[in-house]
């Protein structure tokens, strides 16, 4: 979900020809989708359970009637502080790790040594392949109650993603300044610092804010596995199905996401259209200073002590867990189960995308902020759609999975749809942003020629938006594979469910095997989606 920044630059005038590779990918995708739907039993027996509408209705009705007693709201406010602190400290760690990691995986570092570059990229796939919640559960066993658990669980996987994005950004910077500095006798480090970093700074800053927003949602998921904060309150209320309280927590989370989004948006705008004067932009300076203060406060608030990371106890725990985890379990039964569940996992992620992608494409238009003046009706509709998308991604996937299970029979489908609606929330927003950034002229021209809005959208917007939105969707595919761990517990749950049960029974050898399988699966999906993205370019 690293988008915005590593989107390929499209040629100004795409060649008008049918690309065979795209046809092959399209047909392949359709075949995989049909296979997944068949695997989910959509063409076989009943999947709907109309008897559960009352239970689902209770969940939905509570959305209009959230718990608003002062005591609970106070609790949520204090919890929100914890969530913010984890998100900010985790993001800061991710950026620091990302900066170091980028050095390791940038083509600039490796030059022509392709094998070294590939190995470094492969190394990054390991932290990236595990979900934050899995990192959290693993780190709890090493560090106990230390606040580093939450910070590292966000920082490590996000750091790997950031490293990849930063490396790509730096690699894409035009080489002129760098070469000139080298030719003038500057060292490689100085030349990179002064020749490559400044042009990439804008992209880096906007990625940092995007990470912060994602980190808020991750911090909530971590809270659900025990790191405290909003997620913890949400998990407590969720376990006893107090929907009114669940919704209050969801609204609080949506508010935090909105704040991060608004701040990130302001910074991105400022970067895209800097004020004419050559002076330092006060808004950007304030953003940077504010971020530094926020991170400092987070470290203080969480009482992060670097010493805890290398304490005797941590080292002893690490030793005992590693001893139990190696060698990995390789019995035939486990491997067969893993194989079957890997198939489930892929099918779930494909169905999730198949739900999210068309939804995102349809909603992107209304959700995008129109460039010029627009009618009040249009603005209200846009706000409503954006708020809806925000709520879709603010309700954590495990909650979606349970409430969808009320109205669907157990199997792959409820989990897949839960991921689907959650992904729709994220993808819808990304698609709306992609639409906002499109060239508005084709649509304006069609409208001026008398085309109706639907026609202008179909011929003037859809063809242009399809590429970027598909690229985002392919990025989300890898994320969806990892997210299956969140919805896996009910019924058929894929590798995530297996991982959760091996962790619950402390079978470390099996945990190692399942983790390896998850990492390999993520890596394969990443590879396939990378090829597909290349075909779209």
């Amino acid at each position, binding site marked *: 979900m690293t988008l915005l920044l590593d989107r390929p630059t499209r040629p100004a005038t795409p060649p008008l020809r049918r690309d065979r590779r795209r046809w092959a990918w399209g047909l392949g995708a359709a075949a995989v989708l049909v296979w997944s739907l068949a695997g989910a039993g959509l063409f076989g027996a009943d999947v709907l359970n109309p*008897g559960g509408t009352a239970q689902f209705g209770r969940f939905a009705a509570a959305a209009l009637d959230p718990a608003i007693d002062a005591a609970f709201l106070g609790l949520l406010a204090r919890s929100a502080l914890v969530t913010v602190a984890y998100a900010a400290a985790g993001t800061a760690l991710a950026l620091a790790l990302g900066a170091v990691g980028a050095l390791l995986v940038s083509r600039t570092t490796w030059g022509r040594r392709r094998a070294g570059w590939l190995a470094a990229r492969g190394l990054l796939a390991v932290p990236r392949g595990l979900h934050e919640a899995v990192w959290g559960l693993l780190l709890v066993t090493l560090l106990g109650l230390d606040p580093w658990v939450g910070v590292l669980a966000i920082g490590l996987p996000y750091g790997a993603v950031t490293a990849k994005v930063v490396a790509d950004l730096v690699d894409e910077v035009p080489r002129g300044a760098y070469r000139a500095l080298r030719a003038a006798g500057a060292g490689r480090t100085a030349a990179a610092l002064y020749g490559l970093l400044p042009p990439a700074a804008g992209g880096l800053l906007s990625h940092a804010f995007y990470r912060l927003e994602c980190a808020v949602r991750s911090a909530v998921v971590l809270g659900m596995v025990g790191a405290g904060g909003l997620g913890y309150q949400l*998990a407590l209320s969720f376990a006893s199905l107090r929907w009114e309280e669940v919704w209050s927590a969801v609204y609080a989370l949506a508010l935090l996401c909105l704040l991060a989004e608004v701040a990130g948006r302001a910074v991105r705008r400022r970067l895209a259209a800097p004020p004419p004067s050559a002076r330092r932009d006060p808004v950007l300076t304030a953003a940077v200073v504010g971020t530094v203060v926020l991170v*400092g406060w987070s470290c203080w608030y969480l009482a992060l002590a670097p010493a805890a990371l290398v304490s005797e106890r941590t080292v002893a725990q690490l030793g005992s867990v590693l001893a139990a985890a190696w060698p990995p379990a390789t019995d035939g039964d486990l491997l067969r189960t893993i194989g079957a569940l890997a198939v489930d996992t892929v099918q779930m992620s494909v169905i999730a995308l198949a739900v999210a992608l068309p939804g995102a494409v349809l909603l992107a238009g209304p959700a995008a902020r129109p460039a010029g003046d627009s009618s009040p009706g249009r603005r209200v509709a846009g706000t409503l759609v954006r708020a809806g998308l925000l709520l879709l991604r603010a309700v954590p996937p495990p909650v979606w999975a349970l409430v969808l299970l009320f109205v669907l029979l157990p199997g792959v489908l409820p989990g897949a749809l839960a991921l689907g609606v959650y992904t729709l929330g994220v993808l819808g927003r990304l698609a709306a942003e992609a639409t906002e950034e499109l060239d508005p002229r084709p649509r304006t021209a069609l409208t001026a020629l008398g085309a109706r809005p639907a026609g202008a959208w179909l011929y003037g917007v859809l063809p242009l938006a399809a590429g970027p939105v598909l690229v985002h969707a392919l990025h989300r595919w890898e994320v969806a594979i990892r997210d299956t761990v969140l919805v896996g517990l009910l019924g058929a749950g894929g590798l995530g469910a297996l991982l959760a049960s091996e962790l619950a029974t402390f079978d470390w050898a099996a945990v190692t095997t399942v983790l390896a399988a998850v990492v390999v699966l993520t890596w394969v999906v990443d590879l396939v989606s990378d090829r597909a993205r290349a075909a779209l370019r």
Partner: protein
Amino acid sequence: MSSRRVARSGGPDALLPPLSRRALLAGAGAALAAAVTGCGRSAASSPAALHVGAVPDQDPDVLQRLHGTVADAVSGALDLEVEYTPVTDYAAAVSLFRTGDLDLVWFGGLTGVQARLQTPGAEPVAQRDIDRAFTSVFVVNTGTGLAPSDDLTALAPLRFTYGSETSTSGRLMPAWFLREAGVDPQGFPGGPGFSGSHDATLALVASGSYQAGVLNSQVWRSRTEEGAVDPAVVRYAESPPYADYHWLLGPQAAARTGVPDLRDRLADFFTGLPPGDPVLELFGASAFVPARASDHDRIEEIGRDLGLVS
């Protein structure tokens, strides 16, 4: 125009001295360094405090309330600082007990066995009178048309959900009694579900997505008394009794708190609570009784048998 002249003429931007890139970077770096080094303040308030926790099995809202009361009561009786630490994950509670972050934990039967096996020297302290003979209730959706009975084989062809994976009353013992009755505990159509909590089991069976399920009898009774059970859910059977929840004390607690006979004093405190004490009421019990490790030998055996204890 120099920035000074702009400032003098009231230019809005220049009231702050212009920040050079180097100053900005240095300032940011210094602030971060100060924050990180300033982070040394200790996370746990007092090293000598007794850290109490609980597996998130019963109504978590009540657990919170309950352990605030317990922490105060223990603190008053033993003249110790007591802190309650919330935990939402079964495996996390076991891990935190092993790492020594939690000293005294209210564990379920299975999680207690897991914790004891991973933490040499851990000792059970006390259990409720009802925990010696705890039971689970099998519930079915009225749509199945099943009348209450002791015959568990009738459940085999139904879609069936357990509670949390390592819950004793919501998973381990029901699975054992099902197997005793000749039903494969993993063999329900589509595989059994794991709802995650006793309340979620009730809601899922009420919806009919799962036709049958099993939950802690204490939660079933309290929900029935509250009238919170959907009429679509009916009790089908109750399991034979088994030993469940208990307080488990970590091996390092006595030395750390500086109370050598901590286990005995805790046991005396719990077993000596007078009838009607608020602590007993919150636990839904009339008395605490001493607990021994051997009470849970059967749970350990069954856990190994079902692959839940390794």
